[in-house]
């Protein structure tokens, strides 16, 4: 920039300089040394006559190198402008006369590098000569700062432009749009070229335009500095969206509106979220009102002094709760628990509520309700702590509790009945032994002593009596054995099936040899059982396998064990006469025989004893059979390790 200055000592109102300048070296020298900037004294031909030390530093040349150089070499264009200057004879009067247009000059220092320069000229007449005092200031620093500032400004503008979530734009004092950003494009649909220059009203709905809203907003912003508005806005494609817009007035120092800044936010998302919340609220309401359980939300009531909880207030209740208390929602909300349900203050409920609230732990319990104001007798309660309150859900289990009690009573009766029956069976069969013994023994004695000594009928009659007595004996023994399953029951312990079966086979040795049977025993497990009883099961099944053999082939019996999750399936398989499927259930019933007494002996109690024993161990017993080919009896026993029920 070139400024013509007249006044060297200061800018402002001219002060007369009393001494006329006569160009003597002393005066110039003074000027040179007093100057704060680089100073070149240039002759009318444009050549440098004198310099100061600042100039040496600035241009990088020594004074001697500078003297004689053309000033144009250092500051191109500077000498040219001297023609526009008025030569002055002295430093008196004249005011600063800036040139109409600022021209940036580029000065050159030693080495060739350039720097932006602020050049000021003053022509001075010294005698017949006119010299031009040329002040040069290095503007690099200032330029850098300006560039930085401009850079920063530019970056900020770029930032604003790139914001996508908000429409940020400038509106001039008349309401016309003067800038645009990405967010505005995204939200409103227009791009910058289309919209800049249009009035702000273009974004408003017909109704708003008709009612003068845009103008009113501008007025309000002017008056109050800013105005915030929530309302409908229209996009380029005509679609509407709910917006939150802030219009801020940018004022000058004197309070005039320079322009407005508008920031608009699309609240459609928020609206949707609000809608969702509303819908969720409705669903929640529907859910809790539809619930068959009573639902409450309670807030604690504290004393003002120490914050101790003394009561609870109903904040929310559902339809079931209303029905239970026989009060409407309005009659419950805001009321105290102590008022609505006083008994709960003393029956432990209040303490539970306080505890759940203070510990922050959920609790569940079954409580008996003794409150004339509430129409249920038993409830299953769930208490859930909330931020400052509780949610309580209460299920009416009165019916269930009554059913449970009935069931318990029934079970007790059944247990008693069972025990009586058990005792009866035991006593009956035990006490029957004696008279049976008398009858059987003497009838047999009669048979022995008087065979052939009375008439033929007598022998026959006595024969029948003996048979009867023997059958009675067998029956009673069977009954006794059956009742012993319970009366002689022992604890379940780990039992080695292999050892057990070995013992049973020893007991059956005679029968095995008689039948020439082949017995195959697989790997046997350790199970949890009453050893005596399990032995009886194996004994019965193996004896049966031998008894019901097919006369045509060699009896083969296979004992096998198969593992399941926590139990074993044990099986006794034979190749005997088999059982028809329709009899599978019947054989397990007491005294059910499938064959005539003279075909196959036995009282018919063995399998029902097996079933009773297996079921006592928590297992089950069943049959697989092909009539004419063979039968497999299978039953389950708990594994000794798992100790679980099958």
């Amino acid at each position, binding site marked *: 920039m070139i400024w013509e200055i007249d006044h060297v000592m200061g800018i402002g109102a001219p002060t007369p300089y009393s001494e006329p300048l006569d160009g003597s070296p002393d005066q110039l020298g003074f000027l040179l040394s007093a100057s704060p900037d680089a100073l070149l004294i240039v002759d009318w031909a444009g050549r440098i006559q004198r310099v100061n030390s600042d100039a040496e530093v600035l241009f990088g040349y020594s004074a001697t190198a500078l003297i004689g150089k053309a000033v144009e070499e250092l500051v191109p264009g500077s000498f040219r402008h001297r023609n526009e200057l008025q030569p002055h004879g002295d430093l008196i009067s004249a005011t600063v006369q800036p040139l109409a247009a600022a021209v940036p000059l580029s000065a050159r220092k030693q080495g060739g590098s350039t720097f932006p320069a602020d050049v000021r000229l003053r022509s001075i007449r010294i005698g017949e000569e006119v010299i031009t005092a040329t002040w040069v200031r290095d503007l690099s620093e200032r330029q850098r700062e300006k560039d930085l500032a401009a850079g920063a400004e530019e970056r900020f503008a770029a930032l604003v432009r790139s914001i996508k979530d908000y429409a940020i734009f400038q509106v001039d004092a008349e309401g016309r749009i003067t800038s645009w950003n990405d967010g505005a494009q995204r939200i409103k649909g227009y791009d910058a070229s289309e919209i800049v220059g249009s009035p702000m009203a273009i974004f408003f709905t017909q109704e708003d335009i008709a009612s003068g809203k845009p103008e009113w907003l501008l007025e309000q912003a002017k008056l109050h500095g800013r105005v915030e508005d929530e309302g409908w806005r229209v996009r380029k494609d005509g679609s509407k969206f709910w917006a939150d817009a802030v219009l801020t007035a940018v004022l000058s120092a004197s309070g005039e509106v320079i322009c407005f800044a508008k920031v608009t936010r699309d609240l459609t998302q928020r609206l949707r979220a609000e809608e969702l919340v509303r819908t969720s609220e409705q669903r929640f309401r529907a859910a809790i009102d539809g619930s068959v359980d009573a639902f409450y939300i309670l807030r604690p009531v504290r004393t003002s002094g120490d914050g101790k909880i003394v009561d609870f207030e109903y904040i929310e209740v559902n339809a079931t709760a209303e029905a239970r208390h026989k009060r409407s929602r309005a009659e419950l909300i805001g009321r105290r628990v102590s008022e609505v349900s006083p008994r709960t203050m003393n029956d432990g409920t209040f303490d539970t509520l306080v505890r759940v609230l203070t510990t922050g732990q959920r609790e569940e319990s079954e409580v008996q309700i003794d409150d004339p104001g509430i129409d249920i007798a038993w409830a299953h309660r769930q208490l859930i702590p909330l931020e400052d309150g509780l949610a309580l859900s209460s299920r009416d289990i009165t019916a269930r509790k009554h059913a449970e009690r009935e069931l318990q009573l029934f079970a007790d009766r059944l247990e008693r009945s069972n025990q009586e029956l058990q005792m009866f069976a035991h006593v009956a069969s035990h006490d029957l032994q004696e008279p*049976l*013994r*008398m009858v059987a*023994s*003497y009838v*047999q004695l009669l048979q022995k002593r008087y065979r052939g000594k009375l008439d033929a009928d007598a022998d026959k009659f006595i024969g029948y009596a003996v048979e009867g007595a023997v059958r009675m004996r067998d029956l009673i023994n069977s009954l006794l054995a059956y009742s012993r399953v319970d009366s002689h029951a022992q604890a379940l312990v780990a039992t080695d099936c292999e050892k057990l079966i070995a013992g049973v086979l020893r007991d059956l040795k005679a029968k095995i040899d008689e039948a020439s049977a082949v017995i195959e025993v697989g790997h046997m497990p350790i199970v949890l059982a009453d050893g005596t009883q399990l032995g009886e099961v194996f004994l019965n099944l193996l004896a049966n396998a031998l008894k019901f053999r097919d006369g045509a082939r060699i009896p083969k019996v296979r004992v096998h064990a198969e593992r399941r999750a926590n139990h074993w399936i044990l099986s006794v398989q034979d190749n005997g006469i088999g059982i028809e499927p329709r009899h599978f259930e019947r054989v397990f019933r007491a005294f059910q025989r499938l064959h005539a007494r003279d075909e196959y002996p036995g009282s018919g109690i063995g399998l029902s004893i097996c079933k009773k024993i297996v079921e006592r161990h928590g297992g089950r017993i069943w049959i697989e059979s092909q009539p004419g080919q063979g039968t497999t009896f299978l039953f389950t026993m708990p594994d000794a390790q798992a100790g679980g029920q099958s």
Partner: protein
Amino acid sequence: MNLVFRSQPIEILLVEDNPADVDLTLEALKDGKVSNVVRVARDGEDAMDFLRRRGQHLSAPMPDIILLDLNLPKKDGREVLAEIKLDPELKHIPVVILTSSNAERDILESYQIHANCYIQKPVDLEQFMTVVTSLERFWLTIVKLPKGTDA
């Protein structure tokens, strides 16, 4: 089985209150191989009178073996057993408990009071016969009995 010659028949004391059982036992002993004389006491007191030669049994012989039922009137069989086994004059006599009970408690108790053996009366006649003849064979022919104190 060798026939054993004995100069005198074996003295058996049967303590049994049930006449039916008395007859059965007698019937079974009749079939036996050893000549024997059976005396019957109907209750516990009668049994002790006999053994102590009291009351109506002043001249009763000392039995070589006693067959004792547990359930007796007046004095219970267990008491009788205890008294016999505590009496220095009587405790040498073998006592066979012959009873209808098979209760574990009775069996244990009997052995604890030093019964020589315990037999449950079988329901079946044949079995009963077998038991009695086995008894006879064991105690009266195989086993050595001390000669009676008043032999």
